[in-house]
């Protein structure tokens, strides 16, 4: 409803007009006023409302027409003649790469963006950036689609009417002039976490001009409790950076440190590098205590599922066990000198055990044993252990983790504290609360919302939307015309980060200059330009602002001295080229846990009964807090662990579901590989309720539900609206991440969830081979027990001699964290269409690469393995012999090539593919009409039409590009020169591609390793893609 009727705007309404159109207007009738301002609703709005997502693709075409209707949009200049003078470096057909950075939750990741004739088409990580090392996450991979999204806010709107930028400038300058005598007492800026030094300087400049104005921050994707924990432990805001490369024993307290959050891409790389069983003595060990199963928990050697509130207690037990042991241990080692590690750890173990017996009351013996073992293991690795607390855990747990790390002597070794990456770290919850209070008190005259969607993301008890309506002038800068835009007077289309100049700090403080790859498609403005509009120099461009800031003419407090002016130009070019500004990483800060801080302090005593059902709010692994909800790639991406697409769900353990007598089961349409029909339940929490579909997750703690945020959007694009349910509706400020006492009520209605893999058991088929470190060291062959691969002599025909190149791939199951970056990378590189929920329900998703998830071991807390499955490029390919028209054929380099224009679509190849990696265009899935989407396609890859089979090609376009380059230079392709899209995106370095004929190549060495195996090798398909078995570093004290 809200988005339909625009509120009567404050500043313009009450005065009686001198000229009037109707008596009602003269009389100032509110109904007339409303009518007046609703007379021309935006055209987008008229059709965008209850559009089913299945029509997403069809409607994208219509949006072109709408773009025409809106008319006044300045289109990018079109070149209809070839370049008269060719731009420098630009050779048609050869892509250029530019460095830039993407910020998320106040932390930037350095990127390299592939540009074809001025169109950004593919995003890779920047190898020079410490937060990327060349890898990316799903959000960066999907940003290309975000850029070309036809649903983006395309015009500057004032109450639904299109206005020029100058009209906005007039309004804002008038409003600011009115504020000047008040020193800005009625001016409020609401931003997300700011990690751009330039933007922070701009805001501070503004605040300097308006001393009474306030800057509020609210970033639902950022880490409220992390900041709180640091403040609690150290008395100041600092960031913790982890050095996983130095950590031998890691304890995660509900932290998905490999899967999301600042530095996770880097951490995954460092972590995986210490997991190679070939260097068994270097293998680290990861303990994970967590509620919702995550990538980190899946990779843990020992995982303990617990309700989120219980984790604080466990953390305290471990802290006190360690605290005692730590003191006595250090005392003993001080006294006995070099008595040897064994004695020390034995003593520590003993004291840990006695301490454990005393403190772990209330936990089951198994958990008590777990705590003891972890404490002992941490104790035995002083200085090389690491405790990480999760974003959702309360500040006390973070403080505990800091305390433990300090007690274990890890600070400066496995964990480093630096000043915060955020320009102005603050308690954002309080910040938003203050803003709401001010708005309710009528103190806010001008509210400028720079990015974000607080109407949707603010805690429900803040009643942000109601408060917002009390601000007199409301301006919203955002990518989409979303829930917040609907309540603001001005909606300014934001320039996508690929369209704008800016700068941003990475997880370690490294600054990257964000440079645009393309002129704003829809005339969007960046935050810098909006802030400039509020300054005394309103027409400065973002480029000038950022450059001026770095050349030193802007204000700079904490930055290295700028180079001399004559050198600045060269430096600037170097920074842009490298994507990083050298020597901007923060130096380690010297911080001490405040002496008064005691790890046993528990600020929020839990008063609820033990069997109360707890609710756990998490950012969605695909759409985060909802900011990516209109991205089809991310919506259709099967989420890690649950494999759900297009919806969030009420996630519970199977036992809890059984208690509720609710369950899901595969429907005949699609089945386990498509449609799960499940119970719709109502979640009631503190007098608020929301309805969502129940879904069971193995390994989830009992009596606890996890809900993902970011769904149930009512506005903000055709893909976003209608998917899932809005968990923010029951999320309150005192239970931002979890809370107890939720009630789950069955509604006796059913709901269809699109799940691409519902069956996670291996059925004794050995798809994933796994072992423990000790067993592997004893006998590396033990991982292959019970599996066989026929010898290469089993054939009637002579083996084909692959001369020259022989491409192959090795995928390390032990390294894969299931983050899905490869899947989106593949989708972006290979022009893979989005099919919509309706088609996923039928089992027809098009991903060439999928990440299979399998469970092993105990039913309530299984080991979880991720197995990325691209085309195996079999040497004896079953698909090739059955194709009646020869549309799939073998190349002399061993690639199983697809000839799209020869394919008639019998689907026989797919039936005969034991890996089921082939994908069929059952309908016309590709959007051929929307012009903006056409811009984003990779011109080197055929866009497939309907009726055609397709599959992974090993990125044959990249292979051929590298071969052409090498042939021009009369040399063979170097190892590592070709990276497939999945390999390049992978943070864990789990995928390696190369030439098997070169024994020195990485892939040849990996395939020669003892734990290498072929998936379904017993079929004698001779796959070129092989896997490396998983090896877990199990603590002998706990056993498997």
């Amino acid at each position, binding site marked *: 409803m809200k988005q339909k009727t625009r509120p009567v705007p404050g500043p313009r309404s009450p005065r009686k007009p001198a000229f009037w159109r109707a008596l009602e207007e003269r009389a100032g009738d509110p109904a007339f006023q409303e009518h007046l301002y609703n007379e021309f609703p935006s055209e987008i709005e008229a059709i965008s409302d209850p559009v089913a997502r299945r029509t997403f693709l069809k409607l994208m075409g219509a949006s072109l027409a709408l773009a025409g209707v809106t008319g006044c949009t300045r289109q990018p200049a079109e070149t209809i003649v070839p370049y008269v003078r060719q731009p420098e470096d630009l050779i048609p057909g050869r892509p250029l790469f530019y460095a830039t950075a993407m910020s998320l939750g106040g932390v930037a990741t350095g990127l390299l963006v592939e540009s074809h004739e001025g169109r950004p088409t593919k995003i890779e990580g920047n190898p020079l950036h410490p937060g990327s090392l060349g890898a990316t996450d799903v959000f960066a991979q999907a940003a290309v689609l975000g850029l070309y999204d036809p649903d983006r806010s395309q015009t500057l709107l004032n109450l639904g009417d299109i206005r020029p930028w100058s009209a906005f400038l007039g309004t804002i300058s008038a409003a600011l002039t009115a504020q000047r005598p008040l020193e800005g007492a009625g001016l409020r800026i609401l931003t997300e976490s700011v990690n751009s030094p330039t933007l922070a300087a701009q805001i501070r400049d503004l605040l300097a001009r308006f001393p009474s104005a306030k800057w509020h921050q609210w970033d639902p994707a950022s880490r409220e409790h992390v900041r709180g924990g640091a403040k609690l432990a150290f008395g100041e805001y600092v960031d913790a950076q982890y050095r996983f490369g130095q950590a031998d024993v890691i304890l995660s307290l509900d932290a998905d440190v490999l899967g999301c959050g600042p530095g996770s891409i880097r951490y995954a790389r460092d972590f995986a590098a210490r997991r190679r069983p070939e260097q068994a003595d270097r293998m680290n060990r990861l303990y994970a205590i967590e509620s919702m199963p995550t990538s980190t928990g899946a990779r843990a050697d020992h995982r303990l599922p617990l309700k989120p509130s219980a984790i604080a207690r466990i953390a305290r037990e471990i802290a006190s066990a360690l605290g005692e042991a730590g003191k006595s241990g250090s005392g003993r080692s001080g006294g006995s000198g070099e008595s040897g590690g064994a004695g020390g750890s034995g003593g520590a173990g003993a004291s840990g055990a006695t301490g454990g017996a005393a403190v772990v009351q209330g936990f089951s013996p198994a958990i008590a044993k777990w705590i003891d073992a972890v404490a002992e293991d941490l104790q035995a690795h002083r200085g090389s252990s690491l405790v990480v607390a999760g974003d959702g855990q309360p500040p006390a747990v973070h403080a505990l983790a800091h305390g433990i790390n300090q007690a274990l002597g890890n600070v400066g070794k496995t964990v480093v504290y630096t000043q915060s990456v955020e320009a102005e770290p603050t308690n954002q919850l309080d910040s938003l609360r203050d803003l709401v209070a001010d708005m309710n008190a009528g103190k806010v005259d001008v509210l400028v919302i720079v990015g974000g969607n607080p109407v949707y993301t603010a805690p429900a008890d803040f009643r942000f939307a109601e408060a917002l309506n009390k601000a007199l002038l409301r301006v919203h800068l955002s990518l989409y015309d979303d829930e917040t835009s609907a309540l603001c007077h001005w909606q300014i289309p934001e320039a996508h980060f690929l369209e704008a100049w800016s700068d941003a700090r990475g997880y370690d403080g490294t600054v990257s200059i964000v440079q645009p790859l393309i002129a704003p498609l829809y005339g969007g403005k960046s935050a810098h330009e909006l802030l400039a509009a509020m300054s005394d120099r309103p027409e400065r461009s973002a480029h000038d602002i950022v450059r001026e800031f770095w050349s030193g003419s802007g204000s700079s407090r904490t930055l290295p001295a700028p180079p001399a002016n004559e050198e600045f130009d060269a430096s600037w070019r170097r920074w842009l080229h490298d994507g990083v500004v050298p020597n901007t990483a923060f130096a380690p800060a010297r911080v001490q846990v405040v002496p008064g801080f005691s790890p046993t302090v528990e600020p929020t005593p839990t008063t609820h009964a033990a069997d109360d059902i707890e609710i756990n709010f998490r950012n969605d692994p695909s759409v985060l807090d909802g900011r990516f909800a209109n991205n089809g790639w991310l919506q259709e991406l099967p989420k890690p662990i649950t494999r759900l697409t297009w919806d969030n769900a009420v996630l519970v353990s199977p036992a809890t579901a059984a208690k509720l007598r609710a369950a899901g089961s595969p*429907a005949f349409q699609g089945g*386990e590989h498509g449609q799960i029909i499940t119970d719709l339940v109502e979640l009631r929490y503190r007098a608020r309720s929301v309805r969502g579909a129940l879904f069971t997750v193995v390994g989830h703690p009992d009596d606890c539900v996890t809900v993902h945020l970011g769904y149930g959007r009512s506005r903000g694009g055709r893909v976003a609206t209608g998917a899932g349910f809005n968990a923010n509706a029951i999320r309150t400020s005192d239970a931002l991440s979890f809370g107890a006492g939720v009630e789950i009520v069955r509604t006796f209605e059913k709901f269809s969830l699109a799940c691409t893999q519902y069956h996670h058991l291996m*059925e*004794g088929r050995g798809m994933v081979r796994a072992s423990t470190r000790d067993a592997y060291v004893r006998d590396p062959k033990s991982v292959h027990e019970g599996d066989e691969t026929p010898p290469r002599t089993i054939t009637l025909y002579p083996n084909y001699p692959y001369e020259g190149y022989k491409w192959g791939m090795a995928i390390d199951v032990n390294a894969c964290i299931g983050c899905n970056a490869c899947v989106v990378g593949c989708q972006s590189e290979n022009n893979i269409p989005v099919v919509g929920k309706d088609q996923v329900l*039928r089992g027809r998703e098009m991903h060439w690469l999928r990440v299979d998830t*399998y469970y092993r071991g105990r039913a309530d807390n299984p080991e979880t393995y991720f197995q990325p499955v691209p085309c195996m490029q079999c040497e004896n390919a079953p698909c090739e012999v059955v194709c009646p028209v020869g549309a799939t054929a073998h190349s002399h380099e061993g690639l199983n090539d697809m000839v799209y224009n020869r394919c008639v679509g019998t689907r*026989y190849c797919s039936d005969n593919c034991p890996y089921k990696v082939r994908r069929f265009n059952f309908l016309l899935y590709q959007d051929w009409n929307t012009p903006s989407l056409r811009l984003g396609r990779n011109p080197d890859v055929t866009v497939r039409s309907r*009726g055609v089979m397709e599959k992974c090609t090993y990125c044959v376009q990249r292979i051929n590009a590298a071969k052409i380059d090498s042939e021009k230079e009369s040399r063979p392709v170097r190892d590592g020169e070709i990276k497939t899209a999945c390999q390049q995106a992978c943070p864990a370095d789990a995928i390696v591609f190369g030439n098997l004929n070169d024994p020195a190549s990485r892939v040849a060495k990996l395939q020669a390793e003892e734990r290498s195996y072929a998936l379904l090798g017993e*079929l004698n398909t001779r796959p070129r893609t092989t896997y490396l078995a998983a090896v877990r570093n199990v603590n002998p004290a706990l056993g498997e």
Partner: protein
Amino acid sequence: MADSLQPVEDPSRAAAIRTPAVIAPGHTFGTVTDKISAIVLARKTPLGWYAGFGTAMFFTLLLLVSLTYLVLTGIGIWGNNIPIGWAFDITNFVWWIGIGHAGTLISAILLLLKQTWRTSINRFAEAMTLFAVACAAVFPVFHTGRPWLAYWLVPYPNTMNLWPQFRSPLIWDVFAVSTYATVSLLFWFVGLIPDLATLRDRSQSPVGRVIYGMLAMGWRGSAHHWHRYETAYLLLAGLATPLVVSVHTVVSFDFAVSIVPGWHTTIFPPYFVAGAIYSGFAMVLTLAIPIRAVYNLEDFITMRHLQNMAKVMLVTGLIVAYGYLTEAFIAWYSADRYEGFVPLNRMIGPYAFAYWALIFCNVVVPQALWLKRVRTSVPVLFIISLIVNVGMWLERFVIIVTSLHRDYLPSSWGLYSPTFWDWSTFVGTIGLFLSLLFLFLRFLPMISIFEMRTILPEARVGE
């Protein structure tokens, strides 16, 4: 043989030994010709024919709508998905091809084996074959993602020097089915020539005389004509005989050559052929029983025919049952984890209802045919024949869908359910089949006049 037109079996003697006879007593050359040709030429077209043909045409139009929508939109209107690339489409294809088998078997093999009782049913059995093959041909063409390019499966010379991929069983299918269709058509048409001449001679309408005259190709019934006719017919029978075995053998290769557990089975060729004959005879019974009642042909299609066909069904049904048993046994005996899973999944998996329905229809129900009481009860036979038709359709469905839906990697397991368009296409082909059959009944002699005359006692002049 070639110079003798005489049937070796004396129907009257046969009647004395085991009743009933293949033709009721009391008929002469004249009455036979009158009775059969009157259906086409003299009798008023019954209202029931219009009703039946109208209904069948409705479903034929439904087929046209379905196919048009399919071509415009894509295979996605069906329920097929990624583990289950083939479902109703190939199920229906194999089912129709199987139904077509009885025609060739009756016309060719029984002719060579001198089973004269075949005479009164072979004409419409052959027609049924042709129509079934026509229906079957719809599926391989339209199940492709780009049906307008389906001709690429045919080896034709082209400037790009591109040929089909001869290792693919689908190409073998193209050859097998097209050969089968060609030979069946020739066989049927050659067998029709003397009767077409009879119709030409007896037709009252000038249009009929012209059309039948053209189709009769100048048949005058001279001794030369009969001599050449007999030679040609026998040669065609000889040509058609291997096809009975080859067509379904090749169709079974579609599955047997693949590596899908549940498809990759050496028993498939004989098992498919037996199944085809089984379903073919069931379909002949399904058609013969109402036709003989409506057109009062009990004299020509006697209880003997029905009983014989019931016996063939019983035998082939037992072979098929043996096939089911062997399939399950070998799956277990192979000790292969993938093969061993298939029968278990069929019996207790999500499609167990289809498997047990198939066992009921194809194995349990036909055991009633051991009883003579059942074999001589026309309504019961009709019901059993319908059940066997359903069972054989289920057999193909079970083979195709339950094998594909859970193959090697559990991550890719899925399920299939047919959509409206799956059903409409299937029902539409039944409509097409019945439409063609109604046209055949109306415009061509459904029983071979001249062959019926040869089994009358009057024909035994030479002895």
